[in-house]
């Protein structure tokens, strides 16, 4: 199929694909533009002049809740979730390469973690903490709640990676006299590094944007998505869009940095 002349089918599908991309990016670009709304402008087009007023507004406490604090909490929480997701998924991926009792049950538990509605997990963890007498907080209960969402993704990705991983490389390393730790550190780890970076990206962004699971588990202080969710009902100025622009740009930077890291690791491996 790949070396035939372009058919009508190609042009129809290409148009469909273009529409899909416009559908994905169109609304996002609308709030991007509107966040530069003039001081007297409202929530919709047209622009009443261009200004940075709403970005400045973002950093005044009275205009939006605690933007700086909630951003910091989301950032730290995302990094915590990222590290734990990468390490635990890698370990679990290694475990699943061998047969062990309970492997199937654990695998399906991970899948269940993906399909159980997030609000149920939020409610359940909230009630458990209440009954045990712990105070819910973003770094304890919300941290655990986020892991139930990021770990299954990490485990499934590692599972897929090791399914395609030939044991021949490890056998070769062992034949050359490497210890099992050396084999892991110098052969396995470099080969799966790009996938691990991908798992890290998933862990961070899923946590950074998650809020259904944080709803009942964040305790006294809000994470950023909860703060934004609260704003949707009571903020009626373009400061909402400014916040949207800032967090979206931040997400884009994280994605770009990750892609850069994956490319860099891939290049370096190709050279050696």
């Amino acid at each position, binding site marked *: 199929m790949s070396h035939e002349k372009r058919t009508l089918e190609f042009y129809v599908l290409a148009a469909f694909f273009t529409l899909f991309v416009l559908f994905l990016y169109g609304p996002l670009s609308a709030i991007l533009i509107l966040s530069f709304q003039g001081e007297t402008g409202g929530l919709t087009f047209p622009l009443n002049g261009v200004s940075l007023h709403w970005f400045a507004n973002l950093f005044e406490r009275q205009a939006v809740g605690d933007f700086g604090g909630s951003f910091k909490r989301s950032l730290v929480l995302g990094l915590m979730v990222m590290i734990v997701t990468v390490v635990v998924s890698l370990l679990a991926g*290694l*475990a699943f390469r061998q047969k062990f009792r309970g492997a199937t049950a654990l695998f399906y538990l991970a899948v269940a973690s993906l399909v159980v509605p997030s609000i149920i997990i939020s409610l359940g963890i909230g*009630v458990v903490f209440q009954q045990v007498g712990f105070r819910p907080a973003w770094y304890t209960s919300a941290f655990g709640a986020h892991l139930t969402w990021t770990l299954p993704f990490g485990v499934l990705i590692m599972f897929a990676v090791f399914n395609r991983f030939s044991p021949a490389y490890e056998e070769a390393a062992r034949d050359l006299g490497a210890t099992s730790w050396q084999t892991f550190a110098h052969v396995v780890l470099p080969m799966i590094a790009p996938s691990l970076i991908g798992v890290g*990206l998933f862990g961070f962004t899923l946590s950074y944007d998650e809020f259904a699971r944080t709803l009942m588990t964040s305790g006294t202080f809000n994470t950023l998505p909860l703060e934004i969710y609260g704003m949707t009902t009571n903020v009626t100025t373009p400061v909402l869009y400014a916040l949207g622009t800032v967090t979206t740009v931040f997400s884009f930077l994280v994605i770009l940095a990750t892609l850069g890291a994956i490319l860099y690791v891939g290049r370096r491996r190709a050279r050696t």
Partner: protein
Amino acid sequence: MTVALERPAIAAAAPSKRGRLSLSAVTPYLQSAPLALILGAFLLLPIIMIVVVSFWDYDFAAMYPDFLTTNYSDVLGSWVTWKTYLNTIKFAAIVWALTLFIGFWVAYFLAFHIRTTAMQMVLFLVCTVPFLTSNIIRMISWIPVLGRNGLINSTLVHMGLVPKPIEWLLYSEFAVVLAMVHLYTLFMVTPIFNTLMRIDRSLFEAARDAGASGWQVLWNVVIPLAKPGMAIGTIFVVTLVMADFSTVQVMSGGQSASVALMMKNQMSLLQYPAAAANAVVLLVLVLLMVAGILRIVDIRREL
């Protein structure tokens, strides 16, 4: 949980072997222990707790351990609840059909019409990036587009196509479905793209040589082979829509309901046992749906 139970059994089964060997027998248990512990503490335990609490009594201030079935009879005996469940299933069905259609053709285009792998990856990333940004922001971003004075309405009025702005574009069930499709289509594209990429291209030539038309190839070769990907995408989309409360709340402007939104309202009124009973019913419903889909496909083989 299972790990803790089974580790002694392994040790007892291999007492005569040398230390090294028994260490490697224990290794997978040690490696999977963190996952088992986290999921045990933050998934299994909370679900067990919800089941327990769903039988408890409560008033406006607290809940009391008990064994009542009134929470369930309240859930299952109320016409409003039934309507909410039906409404949620309706959203799931509509969004599923739309995302399946869009997801399949986008994946098909990427897999079979893009000639170089590099271009495939670039276009796939273009589709992926928005899904890694905030869901709420992506919902809000529809407001300036669909609103009463939004882009679409002002364009239509300006062109003279409609006399006054269309009211049902925003804060309606239409807006809910549109936003859900916007949010969840990638969960369909990725697994279908994955299965399409693994189809052996020589099958198409074989089908063509045997005289099949383009549509016959699509219907008898591509779609049957893409079914596992469609099943995995369906699991994602259906469970996400069944669990959704934010999209329904924000995009319908409070005019529509979903089970999760009903639960959220009960929680904000501190009616935890009532919310727990709803949670159990919703969980059973979702797990039945997933089990039904898993009968069609073995996901362990598809990874």
